């Protein structure tokens, strides 16, 4: 018997294959993404909420109806990810951005492809790059990422 046993390690994967029901509002939003559109809801006083909610997060009132926004928008704030982790949406360095779509009054979290942090700024104009129609399933990743509007990153 070994006096000092080697310390063993092993990979251990824990996985839950959840399928969740999304409800009428998020369902409409995801249906929109699948069809290549970005939809918001109308909250209190006509405020447009994207991503949409069933209730206005400020007043608690029920939202009323879907409205198409974008597709372009403005970066309100961002952070640069210099060393992406394995589960990040892009393998190369990228920016997390909050995007206020044209016509929206709230911001939407997504990913911006850019050459570097110097190419990203609050106030910059961006547009979503949708996956191809055949690839879209009704998920926030139906938008692959954002790019600077009017030009390649």
């Amino acid at each position, binding site marked *: 018997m070994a006096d000092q046993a080697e310390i063993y390690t092993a990979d251990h994967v*824990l996985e839950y294959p959840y399928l969740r*029901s999304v409800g009428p509002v998020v369902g409409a939003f995801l249906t929109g993404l699948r069809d290549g559109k970005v939809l918001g809801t109308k909250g209190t006083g006509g405020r447009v909420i994207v991503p949409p909610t069933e209730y206005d997060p400020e007043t608690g009132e029920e939202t009323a109806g879907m409205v198409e926004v974008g597709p372009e928008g403005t970066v309100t704030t961002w952070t640069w990810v210099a060393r992406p982790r394995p589960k990040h949406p892009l393998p190369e360095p990228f920016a997390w951005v909050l995007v206020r779509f044209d016509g929206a009054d709230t911001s939407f979290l997504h990913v911006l492809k850019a050459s570097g942090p110097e190419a990203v700024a609050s106030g910059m104009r961006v547009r979503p790059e949708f996956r191809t129609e055949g690839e879209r399933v*009704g998920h926030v990743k139906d938008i692959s990422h954002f790019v600077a509007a009017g030009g390649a990153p």
Partner: protein
Amino acid sequence: MSEREPVTMMAAPIHLDYVFTAGVAQSKNLHGLEEGKFIGQRCPKCKKVYTLSRGSCPTDGVPTDEIVELPNTGTVTTYCVVNVPFAGQSIEIPYICAQILLDGANLSFMGLIQEMPTDEVRMGMRVEAVWVEPDELGPTMASVKYFRPNGEPDADYETYKEYL
């Protein structure tokens, strides 16, 4: 607008990748299994021998530094005959799942019993471990294929009543 049905469900899998580190005590146990041996660890205070020890005595809270090699034989203290199929089942039902107290140990562990009719299993039955082939031994409980009756007379209830 859409030709297709509206989206009502979303796949939201949770996938967590862990690296499990067995630590010193469990690594000693696993190393024993790799060599086809059961390893126990004795508490210096109460002298109890723990199988599959985590490295300390749960009663006295002291390290169980003394390594004890345990034999291949033990006693069924209690058991369950599994008749119900469930997802991920790898053994043909019905089968016997038993708590086995190795000779010289003061803690039982769960083991599979084979090579006998399931309706003949009983408390106190004497069993022995059947290991996988030597070239298949590894640092895992899967090195123990199962336990089987070893033909000895049943153990007296008094010898294992503290371990139920």
